[in-house]
């Protein structure tokens, strides 16, 4: 290989390397940031439900305990509702753990292009929406069961 060819390849490699830092245009970066913020907003809305979930599951535990010897299906229904609450809460914690391991900067580095970054964010947005649904539904069911038990 001639010196000229070597220099050409070297400069090309350098250029490609530098280009790697600017993998995304400013519009793409903005779109990613906005989609990410939107996803996190979905998390922020339901995260406060964790306390409500805890209080509801505690109340159900007490009612289920009282209903243990009764000849009706309240006890198993309460247990089922508690399990759904715990699963929903776990889902939120798992999702957060996953996002903590994959912050936006690292996603940008790992993914090959803008479309792949957006696909990742879209997938996680669907995931948090599903977690949010599970949290809200289990909470509603739990509260409805408490009201039913209390004759309200």
């Amino acid at each position: 290989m001639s010196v000229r060819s070597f220099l050409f390849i070297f400069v090309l490699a350098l250029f490609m390397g530098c280009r790697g830092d600017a993998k995304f245009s400013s519009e793409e970066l903005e779109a990613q940031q906005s989609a990410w913020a939107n996803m996190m907003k979905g998390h922020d809305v339901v995260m406060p439900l964790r306390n409500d979930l805890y209080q509801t599951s505690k109340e159900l535990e007490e009612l289920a305990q009282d209903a243990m010897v009764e000849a009706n299906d309240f006890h198993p229904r309460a247990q089922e509702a508690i399990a759904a609450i715990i699963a929903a809460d776990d889902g939120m914690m798992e999702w957060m753990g996953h996002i903590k391991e994959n912050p936006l900067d690292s996603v940008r580095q790992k993914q090959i292009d803008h479309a792949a970054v957006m696909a990742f964010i879209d997938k996680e947005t669907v995931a948090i929406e599903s977690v949010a649904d599970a949290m809200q539904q289990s909470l509603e069911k739990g509260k409805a069961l408490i009201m039913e038990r209390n004759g309200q």
Partner: protein
Amino acid sequence: MYITCKRLLWYTWLVGSAIVTFNSCQPDTAPLPYYGFHAIDAVTGDTLYHRIRDFEFIDQDSQLVTNAYFDGKIYVADFFFTSCPTICPVVKAQMMRIYEKYEADDRLLLLSHSIDVRRDTVSKLKQYAIGLGADSPRWRFVTGNRDSIYAITYDYISTALDNPDAPGGFDHSGWILLIDENRHIRAYADGTKPEKVDIFLKQIDKLLQEMENKKTDLREKSVTDGARR
């Protein structure tokens, strides 16, 4: 007449400014408030302030941490979990400011409670503390059973906010709280806001000064009592 009025206005402004400046230069000597329920002791007539309940948690070194660990100290408490991607890292940065400022002052400790008792194992807490550069006897990261963590969260935060129905999510709201040597809540701040933590740092200084004043008073009293005898 016009000159007189103008001069009067000028003097008024001057005196007013002097009063404002004088007042703002005065040290704020009012003690920090006591948050939470107050009751009067029927026998002594003393005011009884809300006290943080007894607790027992396990720290990042698998050691039992109870109230006794904080005897004679003041401490800053907060709530977090290691996998928290949003609020906790921001709050932890502010807790680090507190830790670093008082690193050499053994009168102040820090206590961080994990609210993810299923995942935040002792080893995870240890890694977290090491990662922060705060694996020290002066900063304990603790876990416990779900009920005791929630109960203590409620005790700290709904008391501080003076609201028994504190808004949902208070365990993940970024509050940091200052507890005195008698387990009373004396200050709290939104740990996600550095400017609020600036004020909180001043409140810590004030509480430390209050502790020193109490010690001095006790020493003087014992000297006086000794002299009387």
